[in-house]
């Protein structure tokens, strides 16, 4: 690899520009911490300018060990994610403008930069490098609060993320063996004969861990809520969407994704319903939302891929907005528990309005961002005549309304009056939420610029989200679901929030897994001690025997008297004479 070409390949990469900003920011002494985020924002802007200056194409072509590598590929798929990653990074930096935490500030830019590098990667080696940088930089956000609980959660998170990296690396090796290339394109789960291939399976699992497939999902609920309120927002955006972008590139049309996505849309609804911690509710919402995207990728048509990645684009904005609104409530009240919140609309009216915009967007009410993209996925199920998946998507839409559309704003700002009268969110938070809310409405009302960004714009040319039947169908679904909520509240059948810890798949490794690990460690220790004792007993015995012969008191170390030596010599001489005589 030529050093010059490597330098120029790095210098032109928007992700590297952002990483440089993060590193420079980290070197700013705490006494000047106020300029850290403005400086970082300048680097995000520079990265965005570079992105637009480059235009579509492949850049940073290198030769690694004689193999071609493309460090930067800007095609319609990666461009869409790159654009929204820049928007989200900038908004997150503005939101926590008051932050003076060096490690958190560094991670708030370095981690998005790594995710950006990942979606822009044109080869698998580059993808792997950014994949691992994203894992390592993001854990600083989990460790942010600095408690024992966050440390343990961070270690669990890091273990799972690194496992994903190891699987990815193993998959890359097998892909290279099969194809003789590191190019990052469609990989597929099955070979030409229809059998599952090991390379595809390993990469599928690597992406699946980061996309939080069912049973591989709990690192989201375990780690994300333990970060600081601002750290959780940053975390919520990037890892799962990097996985979605990777799945869209490597596994479009993989039918297994339809079933996996369907499960992902359903099960978090029930866990979110009974969850008291609103940050965790939103984490379950991430699983549910990524499920919609995974289904879209699974159908694999141009329209469904458009829907999947378009929904990822809008989801990043409205999901962040909901996290920001809950984060503002946490910042002002110190809690994210539904049982301790309520009635905040009285003193945080702007935050409440922004939360409702986020809630209506995620619920896909006409006029908001979710409506103009989610419909593409549901229509794809219809076009494929996948009746049960279509029903699942409608059911999940009602579920989204329940936990993200109603529960989040209702229990934070309305419901029972907690008696708390916090001040409105600080101006920087309001600005970030305001811009997010504006984008939610702007995209909802005028989706054409987003449609033009999609990977297959021709496939969305005939899509009319505001066709009368589409608006009426959606309004029927959502308004009658809201009506159901009103009825359940009136008849007092809506369950009260209860402080609790709800067991999920992470219980397997946090309780029995941990106990098993403890038992295995104790067993290994006991066996080691036994072996050591046996070995040391034999060793000590041998030493003792040698010592008894050669030691200071040993037979061979005794001083012999001259008379004894003369006698011994005479005996030996006598024996020699006898032998000589006999011979």
């Amino acid at each position, binding site marked *: 690899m030529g050093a010059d070409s490597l330098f120029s390949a790095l210098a032109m990469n928007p992700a590297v520009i952002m990483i440089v900003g993060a590193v420079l920011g980290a070197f700013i002494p705490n006494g000047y911490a106020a300029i850290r985020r403005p400086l970082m924002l300048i680097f995000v802007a520079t990265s965005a300018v570079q992105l637009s200056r480059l235009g579509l194409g492949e850049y940073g072509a290198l030769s690694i060990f004689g193999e071609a590598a493309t460090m930067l590929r800007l095609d319609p798929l990666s461009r869409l994610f790159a654009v929204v990653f820049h928007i989200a990074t900038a908004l997150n930096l503005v939101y926590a403008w008051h932050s003076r935490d060096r490690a958190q500030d560094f991670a708030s830019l370095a981690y998005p930069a790594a995710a950006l590098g990942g979606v822009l990667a044109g080869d698998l080696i580059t993808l792997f490098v950014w994949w691992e940088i994203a894992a390592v930089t993001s854990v600083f956000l989990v460790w942010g609060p600095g408690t024992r609980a966050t440390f343990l959660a961070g270690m669990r998170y890091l273990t799972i993320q690194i496992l994903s990296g190891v699987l990815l690396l193993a998959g890359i090796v097998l892909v290279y063996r099969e194809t003789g290339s590191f190019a990052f394109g469609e990989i597929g789960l099955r070979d030409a004969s229809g059998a599952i291939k090991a390379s595809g399976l390993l990469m599928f699992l690597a992406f699946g861990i980061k996309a939080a497939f069912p049973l591989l999902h709990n690192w989201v609920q375990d780690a994300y809520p333990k970060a600081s309120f601002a750290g959780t927002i940053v975390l919520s955006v990037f890892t799962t969407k990097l996985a979605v972008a990777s799945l869209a590139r490597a596994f479009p049309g993989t039918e297994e994704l339809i079933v996996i996505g369907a499960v992902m849309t359903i099960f978090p609804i029930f866990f979110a*319903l009974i969850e008291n911690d609103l940050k965790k509710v939103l984490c379950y919402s991430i699983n549910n939302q990524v499920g919609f995207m995974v289904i879209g990728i699974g159908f694999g048509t141009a329209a469904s891929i458009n829907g999947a990645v378009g929904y990822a684009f809008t989801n990043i904005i409205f999901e962040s907005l909901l996290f920001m609104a809950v984060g503002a409530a946490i910042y002002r009240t110190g809690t994210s528990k539904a049982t301790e919140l309520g009635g905040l609309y009285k003193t945080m009216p702007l935050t409440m309005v922004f939360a409702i915009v986020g809630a209506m967007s995620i619920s896909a009410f006409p006029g908001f961002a979710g409506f103009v993209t989610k419909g593409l996925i549901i229509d794809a199920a219809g076009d494929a005549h996948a009746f049960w998946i279509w029903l699942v998507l409608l059911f999940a839409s009602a579920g989204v309304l329940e936990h993200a559309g109603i529960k989040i704003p209702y229990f934070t700002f309305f419901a029972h009056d907690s008696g708390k009268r916090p001040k409105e969110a600080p101006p920087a938070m309001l600005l970030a939420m305001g811009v997010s809310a504006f984008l939610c409405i702007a995209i909802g009302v005028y989706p054409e610029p987003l449609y033009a960004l999609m990977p297959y714009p021709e496939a969305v040319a005939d899509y009319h989200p505001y066709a009368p*039947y589409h608006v009426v169908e959606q309004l029927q679904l959502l308004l009658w679901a809201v009506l159901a909520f009103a009825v359940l509240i009136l008849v007092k059948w809506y369950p009260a929030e209860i402080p609790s*810890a709800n067991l*999920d798949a992470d219980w397997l490794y946090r309780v029995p897994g941990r106990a098993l690990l403890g038992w295995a460690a104790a067993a290994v220790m006991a066996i080691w001690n036994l072996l050591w004792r046996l070995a040391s007993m034999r060793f000590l015995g041998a030493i003792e025997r040698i010592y008894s012969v050669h030691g200071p008191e040993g037979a061979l170390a005794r001083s012999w008297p001259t008379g004894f030596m003369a006698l011994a010599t005479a005996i030996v001489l006598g024996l020699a004479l006898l032998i000589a005589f006999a011979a």
Partner: protein
Amino acid sequence: MTDHSGSKKGWADTKAFRNGFLGVLVFAAVAAAVAGFLPQFRKDHPHFAIEVMGAFFAVYGFLAFTFIVLVGQHLRKLVGRKEDYYEERE
């Protein structure tokens, strides 16, 4: 940071707002359901036979939401534990 002194009723706690909100909601929901039976709001080429039913989405939305809440809350019995469940074990 947080003032706990206030207990005054806000606009959203008043009966007038609640009744007004409910009234608008019921009106809009019924209007959407009725619109589903009008030809100009019907899909020309429905994917599934069930879509032909004018108020299918309304019925499905209501039932799905009710099912999620009424059935989902029982999940607590299976997975709900004390809030410090993990703290005690780690």
